[in-house]
Structure formats: C-alpha cells, structure tokens
C-alpha cells in the first residue's frame, strides 16, 4: 500500500482536481437541489478512501463524580467485555486498577503513541494510526459478585445488592457468555475505536485480566431532526423504538434517585456515586418475528411500530393511560411496555436507565440469524430495578421471540475525581483494614 500511495499521491490529487471541476460543472447543470457543500461531496473518492467523520476528536472528560458511559447519549458503537481477574493478591489487584486507570486516561484523551525500536513489537496496535483519536470513547469499569470472594479480602465491603445473575424462566444461559469478575463497557463513534481500546487493555494487562466473553453492538444512526421535531429513540432489531420511556438522563435529581447510589444510603460508603449494571445478551428470533402480523407485533410490544407511540397515543413521547384501560382493551395487560412499566406510583421506584445496543453475530446451526439486543441498564438498586422489572416480564408473549443467553450483574465503580484518584481506589481503601495478610 505504502508504495502505491506514494507513487500515486500527486497524480491522484491532480486527477481529483479535474474530477472535482467536472463534478461541480455537472452539479451546476443538474441544477436546483444541490447546495454549496455539495461541491466537496461531489469529489469522487477512490474506493479505498476512508469514510469521513468530523467527530474523531470528540472526547469525554475522564474525571468526575460518576463514570462516563452511563448518562451520556449512546454513540453508534458499543462493546461489553467481561474479564476474569488473574491478580493473585491485593497488591496485584491495586496494580490492575492503577494500570487500567492509566490506560483509560490515555485512551479517552487520545494522543501520539510513543515510538519504540522497530525491532520490538510496537506499543500500540496502530489501528487508529500513530496518533490515537478519542472518537467520543467512554470506558466504564464495573465489578462482578465473584471479585468479592475470598481472594482479595473484599467480602465485607460488597455492595449489598450485588449478586450472581440467576437465570429467569425464559433464559437459556450459556456458561461461556455469563458473569465475570470485572466488566468493561466501551462506547464510541466507531467499532474500531472500541476494538483499539480493548486491544490496548489486553496488551497492557496480560497477567491481570483474561477476557471471558465479549459482545459488540450498534445503535442505528438517524437523519438529523428537523426544526421542531421531537427526539426519537433508535430502533432495535425487532424494528421497534427502544428506550421510549427511559427516565430523563439530563435530570440530575432523577438520576440521583434512580441511577446513582447515594452517600448515606444502606450501601457501603465507598460505593456512593456508583451504580448497578445489568447486562443481558438477548437473542431475537428475527425470522419468526418478521413472519408475525403487524398488529400482533404491536399488541405484544404495546406500541405502534412506525412511530413508537403507545397504543393510545400519537407520538413516542406520549404517556399511555392505563387507568382508562383497566381491562387491557387498548394496551394488552401482558404487553411488554405495560408489564415493564405499569406507570403506577409504586412502580416508579422500579425505573431503570436502559442503554442497549443491537448485536449481530453470525448464523446459528439452524441457518437462522444470530442477532438480538445487547441489553445494558443502570440503576441505584439492582433488586428494585432490573430484577423486579424482569420478574414482572416473566411469561410475557414477547418471550416467544426472545432467548436471553448471557450477561451478568456488575457494580459500576464510582467515578475518578481527579489525578490523585484512580478507578477502584475507594473500594480498595474501604477494605484495606479488613485484609488479613498484606
């Protein structure tokens, strides 16, 4: 590639200038609808030319009370990776958190990769080039129930509601896709940016972390909103808008009530400003779904497929009025949205912040597409949140089209407040005195 690039570079520039001129002329002839910036867009690119993004320098501040990747809008690409922690003692565990902190700081900020003697393997995979672009990357670190076993003396400081995920009646959990000591959620504008970050972490912590399972997903992009148009949620692989009734992630008070563990709660003090993360890999039987009548699909969800509006509403943002429909004549009593969120005063405490991605993996043995939803949600109370909601959903008609096969429960660590702090520091500090052997 290098050779041909350098040989062709000046020629292709000339050729492009010529073609651009032609393009503009063509546009002028074609007339009307093309606007000023069509000039650049009409320059014909080579087949191998990279797609353009103006967002590769977007970045999120790593330091803050809470970790990133929770209340931020989902970017187009997400990846959830679960790890086994290989650390042998607390010293190793601290080294793991400090190294993670160092890598995350670099990856979320971006910058030039130090060059080493070319006789050595390079320090970086190089897939983003010699200067790493942050590309809106967030890296969110959470810990699983198994990290609190007898290895590190963390038993006594385990978040009260953290537990090993237990299969629900419709689950068919595959052991290779479940649980883990630690989860890392990567989100950015492009799958390559997430993969770059994962490979950096794998390369830098070979003695401390071992990948247990990984699931990537996407959020489909939409055309920019027209003036006055209400925001719309992205669609899942069943073709329905997902996240319509999510709590307002810009409302700090709501987030404090529903998502962030509060100081002074019944959770260990170190856990304040953390959150519970529930992850579910939910396979969708899409062929069968696509062979289901539209009105049945809509009855199963409780929403209109095209608009995302509730059955008694006009727009996605409309709130269904179940009070006027006690028998479920408009919105079925066992429809997905009615079971998940019955919209009563008592069930307000069960609201969760969903942050899902669509996934597509390949083909199952039966020739059916292996795809579905990488469901991720955050809540201040795992039991009142995901576990209660999912329990209400047990037996819903939608189950016929779903099979959850993996995932796990994790506790998302509090944010890293400044450069003296590091991810996991409060957890280690809280358990320091309980450790028998140093």
């Amino acid at each position, binding site marked *: 590639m290098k050779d041909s690039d350098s040989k062709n570079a000046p020629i292709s520039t000339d050729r492009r200038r010529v073609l651009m001129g032609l393009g503009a002329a063509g546009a002028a002839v074609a007339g009307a609808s093309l606007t000023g910036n069509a000039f650049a867009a009409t320059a014909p690119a080579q087949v191998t030319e990279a797609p353009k993004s103006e967002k590769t320098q977007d970045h999120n501040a790593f330091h803050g009370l809470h970790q990133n990747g929770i209340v931020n809008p989902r970017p187009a690409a997400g990846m959830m990776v679960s790890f*086994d922690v*290989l650390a*042998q003692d607390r010293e190793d565990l601290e080294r793991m958190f400090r190294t993670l902190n160092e890598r995350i700081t670099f990856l979320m900020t971006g910058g030039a990769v130090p060059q*080493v*003697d*070319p*006789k*050595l*393997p390079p320090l970086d995979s190089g897939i983003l080039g010699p200067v790493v672009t942050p590309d809106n990357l967030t890296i969110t670190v959470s810990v699983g129930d198994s990290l609190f076993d007898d290895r590190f003396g963390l038993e006594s400081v385990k978040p009260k509601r953290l537990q090993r995920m237990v299969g629900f009646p419709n689950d068919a959990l595959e052991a290779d896709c479940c649980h883990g000591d630690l989860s890392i959620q990567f989100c950015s504008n492009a799958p390559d940016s997430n993969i770059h970050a994962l490979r950096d972490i794998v*390369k830098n912590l*070979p*003695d*401390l972390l*071992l990948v247990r399972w990984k699931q990537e997903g996407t959020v489909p992009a939409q055309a920019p909103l027209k003036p006055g148009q209400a925001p719309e949620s992205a669609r899942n692989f069943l073709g329905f808008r997902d996240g319509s009734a999510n709590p307002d992630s810009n409302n700090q008070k709501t987030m404090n009530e529903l998502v962030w563990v509060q100081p002074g709660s019944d959770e260990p003090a170190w856990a304040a400003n953390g959150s519970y993360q529930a992850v579910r890999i939910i396979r969708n039987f899409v062929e069968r779904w696509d062979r289901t009548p539209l009105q049945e699909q809509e009855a199963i969800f409780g929403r209109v497929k095209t608009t995302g509006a509730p059955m008694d509403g006009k727009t996605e943002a409309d709130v269904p009025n179940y009070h006027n429909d006690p028998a479920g004549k408009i919105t079925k009593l066992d429809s997905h949205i009615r079971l998940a969120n019955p919209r009563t005063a008592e069930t307000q405490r069960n609201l969760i912040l969903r942050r899902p991605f669509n996934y597509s993996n390949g083909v199952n043995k039966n020739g059916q597409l292996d795809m579905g939803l990488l469901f991720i949600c955050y809540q201040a109370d795992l039991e009142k949140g995901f576990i209660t909601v999912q329990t209400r959903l047990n037996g819903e008609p939608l189950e016929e089209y779903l099979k959850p096969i993996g995932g796990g429960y994790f506790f998302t660590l509090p944010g890293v407040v400044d450069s003296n702090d590091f991810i996991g520091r409060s957890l280690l500090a809280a358990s320091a005195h309980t450790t028998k052997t140093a």
Partner: protein
Amino acid sequence: MKKSPLALLLTFGVLQTSMSAFAATAPLDLVTPVSDYKIYVTENVDTLAADTQKFTDAIKKGDLATAKKLFPTTRLSYESIEPIAELFSDLDASIDSREDDHENGVKAEDFTGFHRLEYALFSQNTTKDQGVFADKLLADVKELQSRIAGITFPPEKVVGGAAALMEEVAATKLSGEEDRYSHTDLYDFQGNVDGSKKIVDLFKPQLEQSDKAFVAKVEKNFATVDKILAKYKTKDGGYETYDKVKEQDRKALAGPVNTLAEDLSQMRGKLGLN
C-alpha cells in the same frame, strides 16, 4: 556437511549494522547458543524418531493399550522443537494438523499424523485400519529428522521460537483443544514450555547484559507455570488428563502464559535481531 555456525550467521545477515536502540548482539555471542540449540533440537528429533517407531509399531501390532500409553510421551519431543519443525510447513501439516484444520474434519483425506491416530485410538478406541497412517507418520518424522540435520538454523527463528512456543500454549493448549480426544494436553503444554525455556536459558547471558529485570520476570513466570503443572504430575511421571485441571488453575496458568508471550515477543529486539 556441517556449516560453521559463524558462516551461518553471516548468511542470515546478523552482522548488519543497525541504528536502533538495541545494539545487535555481537554475532560471536550468538554462535554458542545457536549451535547449542541445534544440538538440543537434534537430540529431541532423534528421540521423536525412536519414540514414533515404538508408537507406530504398537499400532501396527494392534496393541491399543500400548499405543494409547505411548501417544502423549511420543509427542512431547515434537512439541518442544516446534519452532524448527514448523519451518517445514508440509511436514507440520501432515504430522501435527488437527481436525479443525481441515474443512472436511476427520473425514478429510489429508488429515493424517498424530491427531488422526489420536482420533482412532481415543475416540474410536481402535487400531483397526490405522497401519497406513502409522506408516505415514513414521516416514514423515524420519523425513523431518533428515531435513533438520541438513539446515542451518536462522538465529532470529531460534530466538523468536521462545515466544512462538508460548503463543502455541496461549492459542491451543489453555483451551484444551490440542488433544481433544485423548485430553493429554498437559504433555504438549510441558513440551512447549520446556522448549521455550530452553531458548531463554541458552541466551540468558546475552539477555542479562541488556536487561536483568527482564530475565528475572521471565524466569519467575516460567516457575509459576511449572509449579501449577507440577500439581498435575502423576506417579508414573506423566500428567493427568486436561479435564482434571481445575478452572482456577487454568486461569492461574493464563496470566503467566500470556505474560510470557508478551515479554518474549521482545526477545529478538533485545538481542538486536530482526
């Protein structure tokens, strides 16, 4: 037709000067370890040939029990010299390919060698009709023996072999997919680790000149692997089957194995080799 090791090094361009941070190790410093390594490989391939003779004899006699017993120990010396054996990709494919290297799996006509016989002995529990595979394996091993005698060892392949062996462990031994019918993976595991450690040992004086801490870290990780493997040694000097290896030990092996693969990938550079 023995070439002098120095001539060999000259041939492979070790004397080229370099602008890089790591000065190339003086070529004379590499002569001894490379020729010592050739002795090590020669001894191992001789053992492999002798062991393969006994192993294939047992198969041809229809002695299933003996053939099963000899399978893992026969492979051990092949696994320890893989960086050199793999220089002959045709032989490596016919001696050591696995079922999943072939689109048609066990039914593939070119699926031969150790794992084809392993499939018959352990999965089908028979030596029936295996004479043709036994003969082919023995012929291939003898061919390997003669080819190894005839080549000069490229120093960068020798030094790079330390990391390559750990990559083997990381890729196919930790998962237990190498010996999927016999579950005798720990023998291969030990063979790979021994072969890797041998190379590090041979170049230790040169490595220590540039980075003592590197050698100490590598040796510590080898010791950790050996310690865990030792837990699964049986009274007869063999190993338990891989399904007996506890989940926590598999994980405990993954850390030092992956770290060795990562660290040893720097060994060529540290010795100034390309």
